[in-house]
């Protein structure tokens, strides 16, 4: 209870932070500069909402598509070498540990970097991980909506580096939504697979699911 409360407070206070760091200057004409500040008071802010995105297989996926299922969402991007593979690996292990319970769950990897993360790029990137993780991308506007709804913080910063690539620096949280599409809890992407599986089971059990 405490851990969950702490996590909720942490999220409500600042929400998932993210940033886009520009390493070098050459690129992508316009650049994302968003600051979504805390809304409401801790514990009362709503997280999540309607969205329409495109899956790696081309299928349109909205917040309604998987109603009736628990939904696990991890936000990341394919230029992320550390936090994202770590979280995706942890989620893959968790799905295996969940056994048949994983059937009650749909898992999304949603990119916050739609300019680079096309369906093809995400398909390749997700290959080494559990095939049940569905990659979702969209237009910049669609992703912006999701970023807003999930209170992700993203900002563009210039780095003094001299490469041509930018990378997205963000916090690494895994969100769990219930079968009605309501936000339930978050866990850090560094949590190992066992821990994630235990967390998911507990949340499902508490909900009588």
């Amino acid at each position: 209870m405490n851990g969950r409360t702490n996590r909720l407070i942490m999220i409500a206070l600042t929400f998932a932070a993210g940033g886009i760091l520009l390493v070098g200057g050459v690129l992508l004409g316009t650049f994302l500069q968003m600051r979504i500040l805390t809304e409401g008071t801790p514990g009362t802010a709503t997280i999540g909402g309607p969205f329409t995105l495109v899956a790696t297989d081309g299928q349109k996926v909205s917040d309604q598509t998987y109603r009736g299922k628990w939904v696990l969402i991890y936000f990341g991007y394919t230029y992320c070498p550390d936090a994202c593979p770590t979280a995706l690996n942890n989620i893959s292990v968790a799905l295996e540990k969940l056994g048949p319970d994983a059937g009650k769950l749909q898992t999304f990897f949603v990119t916050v970097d739609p300019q680079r993360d096309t369906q093809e790029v995400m398909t390749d990137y997700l290959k080494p991980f559990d095939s049940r993780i569905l990659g979702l991308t969209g237009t910049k506007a669609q992703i912006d909506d999701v970023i807003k709804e999930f209170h992700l913080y993203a900002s563009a910063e210039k780095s003094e580096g001299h490469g041509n690539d930018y990378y997205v620096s963000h916090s690494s949280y895994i969100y769990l939504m219930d079968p009605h599409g309501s936000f339930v809890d978050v866990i850090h992407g560094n949590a190992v697979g066992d821990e994630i599986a235990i967390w998911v089971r507990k949340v499902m059990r508490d909900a009588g699911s």
Partner: protein
Amino acid sequence: MRRMAHLITALLGALCLGGEPHAQTSAASMVVVQQPWARATPGGAKTGAAYMTLINNGASADRLLSATTPLADQVQFHKETEDNGVSRMREVRNVELEPGAKIVFKPGEMHMMLVGLKQPLIEGQALPLTLQFERAGNIDVTMPIEKVGAMHREDIGMMMHDSDHMK
């Protein structure tokens, strides 16, 4: 030419990998590099990550200034920091090594980010890396490449596994 030298270093290093001595140290200093490893990259990835433990056994402070590898345009040091209770990754220019310091680079925390990969990092292969320290000078390391999403070096995992069995 420099790249050639790196490759030769890598090959020599790879030959030594089967043996026990994973610690690679500079003759001129007391900085020790332990358990270096890199992660294989998912398809199409333009960035990679490398991990290791740095120990300063010397009486003077040292500083990791930079790292280079022939396999990427640049190597950045990223550290997890907390902003208002939310952790996020930030680039740090240098890594301070006070006397006796032990700095651990590991997944989800501090790591070296390889930017502009020239080729995918493939499991089972090796990544040559040169670390430049203020006092210790250059230390060449050869890092085994573990599977995508690996959380530690396979041989360390085996050791942990073994000790589990002994309980």
